[in-house]
């Protein structure tokens, strides 16, 4: 039996491969062409610089020759060349040779790599010789008294280091652009396939189920001009045909009933028999209401996180620049933290209100409001010339971030199909992480080339796209019944009055974020630095967290939905995480640290989707509010983490501190397992007859 799911899965997989291959092929082709062109075009420019340096350096030597000093008796040339080489950062070496190419004086950082020159019999038109040596472009200038014959050569070697640096930079840019393009392609593909294939097929499946049950009261939503639209129109034509036949039978029954009482009774019985098998709506079938899908929220979320993360790499630098105008008793370094703290505080404080707004206005309304606020914030940040307006703009960005992310999360929870809640909500963390990777990487490149203001303007443009996507893809409404009356305080009372939710928050969500911020972002980099690792190596090690987390999120969501072990994944993840951190004091640090970081990523990834699903399923209050309280708790954990780690560092070394945090995490996981087991027992006793 071939299933639609199988066909769709194969389609998604194959399209992803095609997208990755096409992007890889074309971008690599352009980049290789660029590298070749750099190499080709930069050589004449470097040789031109070498010629200018040669003429300038040779000038005093030529004046000396002009005064009648023989070439062999020139004194102090080594010192002179050394001074000149030191004043020219691009110079690799300066070598003065006689006409036969024998060195008389050498200077410069790469003087040892000089290779003797064999002058050709015939000189080029400009009297200069040029050759390419490994890592160096060399130009030889003839040294002669004014109007006289050449008596020697001044060889100027200019280093290719700057060009090689650019080529290396270009290779990294290539990796970044490829990474961003492939991730963006995957997100957009997911969105388009959902709207053009998965969504319509699921709608057709729903219509087929209705028709099988004899329900002819609903129509498919048409509008698409592709295959799905044609099928939807065919479905509606079928419903209409059935409806027309029903109308005809009603008319026929009325005609038959006019024959007499018995005929009327028999005709009514026939119609009643039909009523049992087929249901029609008076006035014709109406379109089935749109529910929206999880993917409809995933793309806006991904794009929004990209927009936010574009500025991550330079916000502290910009903050410090803007803080320079502050009174002298305030340190710019201290003030630079103000925009960051303002943003984080705004996100934390606005998250519950974002949840309430989503519950009242529906995800679409909340996304539009959050997007509008964030766009204003980015615009303000682009225009800000002082620290306080910049911090105020970041507050707006933070409020927008809180509202929009919680709205997308709520949409994912609302749109999750039966038995797919964890997988659907796992998409939230996946989209946030992919967006963060893409945004940070491409933002740094844009800021470097176009400046800070242009990067904020790019964020505004992306947020406008987010709002347009939300307008088009997420149906209006879907506000929760009764949500309008529920205040944040009432929601908090309901949520925290629920032992399951409180246990989830305090024993799973908060400890996970304490470990993330305290160990991965604080202690691990310090420990790696103490081991003598370079900045790049530290970055690569920390990146292991994200790399292991992304696939684990998908696996965790799948296991939670399929095998129904969401609770086990939450406490099991905490135990695994704790064990990995406890391993650090036991194993050699250089081995244990990368393993612990990777296992932490995998363990937290496994627990991430089940945790969101468990919060949404506690049923004590509206879903958006519950999710917002969970996010608030996570943010508090992120704030506590570095402080807790720093406090532990005052009492021991990094290894000890990580071990302690690991033990706390494992204990919290065990406590959560106990609470969950007790809850299950209580539920079993409650349901017992």
């Amino acid at each position: 039996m071939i299933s639609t799911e199988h066909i769709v899965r194969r389609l998604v997989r194959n399209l992803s491969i095609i997208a990755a291959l096409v992007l890889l092929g074309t971008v690599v082709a352009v980049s290789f062409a660029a590298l070749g062109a750099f190499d080709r075009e930069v050589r004449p420019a470097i040789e031109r610089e070498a010629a200018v340096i040669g003429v300038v350096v040779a000038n005093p030597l030529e004046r000396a020759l002009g005064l009648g000093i023989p070439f062999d008796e020139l004194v102090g040339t080594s010192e002179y060349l050394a001074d000149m080489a030191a004043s020219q950062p691009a110079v690799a070496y300066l070598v003065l040779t006689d006409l036969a190419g024998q060195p008389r004086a050498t200077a410069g950082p790469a003087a040892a790599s000089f290779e003797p020159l064999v002058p050709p019999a015939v000189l080029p038109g400009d009297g200069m010789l040029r050759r390419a040596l490994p890592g160096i472009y060399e130009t030889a200038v003839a040294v002669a008294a004014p109007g006289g014959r050449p008596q020697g050569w001044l060889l100027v070697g200019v280093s290719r280091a700057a060009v090689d640096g650019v080529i290396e930079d270009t290779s990294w840019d290539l990796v970044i652009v490829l990474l961003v393009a492939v991730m963006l392609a995957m997100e957009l593909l997911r969105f388009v396939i959902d709207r053009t294939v998965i969504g319509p097929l699921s709608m057709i499946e729903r219509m087929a189920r209705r028709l099988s049950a004899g329900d002819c009261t609903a129509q498919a939503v048409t509008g698409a001009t592709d295959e799905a639209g044609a099928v939807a129109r065919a479905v509606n034509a079928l419903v209409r045909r059935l409806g027309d036949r029903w109308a005809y039978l009603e008319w026929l029954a009325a005609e038959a009933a006019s024959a007499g009482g018995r005929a009327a009774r028999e005709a009514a019985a026939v119609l009643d028999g039909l009523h049992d098998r087929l249901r029609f709506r008076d006035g014709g079938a109406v379109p089935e209401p749109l529910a929206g899908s999880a993917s409809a929220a995933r793309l806006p979320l991904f794009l929004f996180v990209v927009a936010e993360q574009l500025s991550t790499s330079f916000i502290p630098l910009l903050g410090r620049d803007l803080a320079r105008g502050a009174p002298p008793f305030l340190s710019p370094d201290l003030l630079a933290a103000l925009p960051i703290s303002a943003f984080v505080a705004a996100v934390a404080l606005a998250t519950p209100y974002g949840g309430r707004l989503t519950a009242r206005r529906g995800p679409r309304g909340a996304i539009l409001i959050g997007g509008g606020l964030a766009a204003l914030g980015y615009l303000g940040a682009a225009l800000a010339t002082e620290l306080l307006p910049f911090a105020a703009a970041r507050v707006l960005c933070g409020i927008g971030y809180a509202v929009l992310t919680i709205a997308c999360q709520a949409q994912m929870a609302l749109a999750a199909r039966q038995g797919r809640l964890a997988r659907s909500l796992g998409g939230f963390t996946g989209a946030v992480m992919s967006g963060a990777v893409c945004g940070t990487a491409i933002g740094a490149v844009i800021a470097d080339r176009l400046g800070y203001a242009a990067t904020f303007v790019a964020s505004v443009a992306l947020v406008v796209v987010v709002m347009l996507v939300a307008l088009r893809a997420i149906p209006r409404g879907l506000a929760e019944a009764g949500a309008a009356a529920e205040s944040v305080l009432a929601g908090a009372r309901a949520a925290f009055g629920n032992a399951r939710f409180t246990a989830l928050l305090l024993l799973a969500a908060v400890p996970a974020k304490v470990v993330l911020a305290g160990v991965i972002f604080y202690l691990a980099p310090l420990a790696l630095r103490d081991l003598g690792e370079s900045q790049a190596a530290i970055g690569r090690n920390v990146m292991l967290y994200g790399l292991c987390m992304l696939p684990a999120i998908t696996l965790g969501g799948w296991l939670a939905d399929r095998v129904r072990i969401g609770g086990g994944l939450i406490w099991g993840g905490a135990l695994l995480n704790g064990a990995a951190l406890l391993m650090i004091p036991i194993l050699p640090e250089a081995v244990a640290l990368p393993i612990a970081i990777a296992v932490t990523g995998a363990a937290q990834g496994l627990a991430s989707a089940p945790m969101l699903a468990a919060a949404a399923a506690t049923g004590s209050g509206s879903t958006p509010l519950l999710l917002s309280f969970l996010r608030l708790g996570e943010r508090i954990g992120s704030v506590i983490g570095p402080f807790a780690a720093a406090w532990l560092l005052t009492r021991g070394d990094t290894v000890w501190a990580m071990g302690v945090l690991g033990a706390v995490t494992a204990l919290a996981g065990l406590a959560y397992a106990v609470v969950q087991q007790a809850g299950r027992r209580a539920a079993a006793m409650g349901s017992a007859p």
Partner: protein
Amino acid sequence: MTGSSFATRIGLLLTALTVLACTLVTALNYLKFERLLLIQHQRMFTTIGADLVDTFERGMNIGVRLADVPGAQSLLDRAFGRDVDLQRITVADAGGRVLFDTERVRIGDAAAPALLPAGTTRRLARFGGLDWIGMPVVNSFGQREGSLLLGYGRAGIADRLTAVALAMAGPGLTALAIGLPLAWLAIFLVARPTRALFAQLAGLLAGGGAPATEEAMLQGLREAIHRHGATLDDAERQLEAIAARAPERNA
């Protein structure tokens, strides 16, 4: 199947993304190379300027003021030929009045204040379509006697940048010209089973025959359509039979 296919949308999306990625890479590389050349260009003219300043300072060391350095104007005229991009060299006194200039008509004018170095620090500026380096000329007592302003163009850089842009555009366009049609072909090939499913659904719903595949939804739908058709046929037959009977006599 009328109208565009979902595969067309996916093809368009992939085309747009690929073109965007290629444009981004090209633009980033171009900007990077431009910066590299501008820095190198600036370094080269700084070398020329520093040599001239050094000559002027040595000239003043014999005890003359900047305006009286012997052979100053011919020194500027000779240096002017060192590079084709060199457009103008000016020497101004501490008050900013032009003392020597490769454009002799400017001698005696006031130099643009935006170009004059601040104290003993060099100034870099873009002014009047030229890049400028303003260098202080300092006497043996460490006092600023005046400034040397060196203006240069970007013609040499522009040629190289054009060459790099063309070198990237050629292979880029070729890669797109080969890659995109192949991608479209592959997209339509992989979309074929899904399109066939849609086509079978449309055919079935329009009253066509049995679906070619054993897909569960198609079979269920087919069965439902037949069942409902038969139910309605049966009801219609019964009602027609009732209607065809002679009217009942009133009791």
